[in-house]
């Protein structure tokens, strides 16, 4: 009697597991084997930027009659997760893999194995180091985006003596370095210039940016120009600036082009942002894989998907679009 009960408990567990598996599989049965399979591996699942990238890839795959398999790392820096994703996709017979690498060097061996197995590998958004570790790269020219931000902040500042604070992302990050250096170039100063009165790493995180800005405002109250690695960092910094009653005295520049960021520009919290086009990266990537599957043509080199300065306070001599245009072209949902 007892025996039966124990047995059934264990088996209920096993059956539930089986049920979960079956549930997971029902969505994907019956896919034809001739379909071109395209793999997409983003850094994480948790950022609307990558959601946009993925939705655009899915839409393009549907249009081209390809099947998209989307996987992601579990967190920024999850090399193991991305390597496993590459291996599993190759095992599944994808024609091409689109990847936004978590570390520009950590996944290189897995990428090489995939390419040796005849899979075309394209980096989206973030280049690998060296860049030719992949067949091609579709990404924003982050240096150019940084230059746009720097030129605008400098222009908006006018004749005031600049006191610049830089809220960086992650030290050593490829994108971070390009944006940072681009900003300095556009602004017309160099690393270590006396105009730079503060510099903090925020990991592009709103909370960390707020804390960093609170501390900087204590240390360097005279700051009037702010570089931010992305819009969440800008939003966090604005919180701190507003709390210190300095809201209209500091010119804030940013990069990304999320709908939340554009809304912040419209509301006057951020002065200007530089919009990127993740959807374009994904579309071009999927098209390139489908083309490779059809006629064997491999994409190559670095392909700039462009960026656009968006502000409602245009600076003379600097091409920009207003927030109405930004709302039409941004990614993600405002307020999320």
């Amino acid at each position: 009697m007892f025996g039966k009960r124990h047995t059934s408990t264990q088996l209920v567990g096993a059956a539930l597991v089986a049920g979960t598996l079956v549930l997971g599989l029902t969505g994907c049965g019956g896919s034809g084997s001739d379909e071109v399979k395209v793999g997409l591996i983003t850094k994480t699942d948790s950022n609307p930027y990558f959601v946009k990238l993925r939705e655009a890839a899915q839409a393009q795959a549907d249009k081209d009659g390809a099947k998209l398999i989307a996987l992601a790392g579990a967190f920024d820096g999850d090399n193991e997760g991305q390597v496993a994703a590459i291996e599993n996709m190759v095992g599944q017979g994808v024609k091409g893999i689109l990847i936004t690498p978590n570390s520009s060097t950590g996944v290189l061996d897995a990428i090489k194995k995939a390419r040796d197995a005849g899979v075309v590998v394209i980096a989206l958004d973030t280049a690998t180091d060296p860049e030719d570790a992949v067949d091609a790269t579709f990404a924003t020219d982050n240096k150019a985006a940084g230059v746009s931000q720097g030129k605008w902040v400098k222009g908006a500042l006018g004749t005031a003596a600049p006191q610049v604070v830089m809220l960086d992302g992650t030290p050593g990050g490829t994108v971070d370095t390009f944006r940072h250096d681009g900003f300095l170039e556009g602004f017309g100063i160099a690393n270590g210039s006396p105009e730079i009165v503060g510099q903090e790493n925020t990991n592009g995180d709103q909370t960390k940016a707020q804390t960093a800005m609170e501390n900087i405002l204590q240390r360097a109250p005279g700051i009037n120009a702010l570089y931010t690695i992305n819009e969440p960092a800008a939003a966090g910094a604005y919180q701190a600036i507003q709390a210190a009653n300095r809201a209209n005295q500091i010119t804030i520049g940013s990069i990304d082009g999320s709908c939340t960021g554009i809304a912040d520009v419209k509301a006057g919290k951020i002065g200007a942002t530089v919009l990127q086009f993740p959807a374009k990266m994904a579309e071009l990537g999927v098209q390139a894989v489908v083309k490779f599957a059809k006629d064997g043509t491999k994409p190559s080199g670095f392909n700039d998907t462009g960026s656009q300065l968006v502000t409602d306070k245009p600076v003379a001599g600097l091409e920009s679009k207003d927030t109405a245009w930004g709302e039409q072209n941004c990614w993600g949902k405002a307020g999320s």
Partner: protein
Amino acid sequence: MSTGAPAAAPSTATSSISSRFNARNLLREPLLGPLVALVIAIVIFSSVSNSFLNPQNVSLILQQSVVVGILAVGQTLIILTSGIDLSIGAVAVFGTIVMAQSAGAGGPFLALGSTLLVCVVFGAVNGGLVTALRLPPFIVTLGTFTAIQAATRLLAGSETYRVEPGALTFLGTSFRIGSFSTTYGVVTMLLVYLVMWYALSQTAWGKHVYAVGGNPQASNLSGIKSQRVLFSVYLTTGVIAAIAAWAALGRIPNADPNAYQNANLESITAVVIGGTSLFGGRGGVGGTLVGTLIVGVLRNGLTQAGVDNLYQNIATGVLVIVAVAVDQFARRRSQ
């Protein structure tokens, strides 16, 4: 497309098992439930995908399981003593940075030695706080996890270090047995399991570990030096973390302070799915190996089937809860 076959699988398993096993066996063998789940998962995936069971893919699943699989052995030891180790992954990541940096200064063998030393010291710190100060392992390892993670970034200067091929990446080297190609990392993982299985089931030390976890008062009364046994468990876990660090550099020859952030939790997942009781004293490394493989099979199989990442995590989450529920029921019935 083949929902018919998997649906039939559990019921076939039901009849064969219920005829052969009774409650006593199930309680003594917490391994059985996970094993059934693993077999079912394999049956389902091989019916969905032709390539699932080919040797290359099986080898992949094993390679992808190596790091968390090794860490899970250490986690099993701690959980058997009714503790938990939230720091084990962070210790291993710290180990990879030490290994990469000291290799540049003094060669691979100094690197391996210093990594072992550092990881054992971290084990001793955890063990010392748990035994000498009688602090709860959850809190101790939460503290050391937080501190070690920060120390890792300080040590690495938030940079990643590429490791040159050689002794440090040896565990990533592959070799063939017939048509089956696998890495020395996989062999190392299996060896770690074998050694710990032997130590736990065939030695007095192993019996003491179970006794301390199952009932510390009773084991004290019976003359076992509980605190000494506990401390040895944390030291051993340090050694295992060092082996995991070595295996990690074999798998990805890049020491990255941001890597393996979820390894702590993933190792706990493997242990729990493997049927080891969080209340201590019940379970073993055999179950953990099965638990590790279940997680690996799920991830690989669901990818092969084209299932999205987040659904894979939902499946793993459900499994954890099911496993704990099964353990609870088994304990309640046995009381």
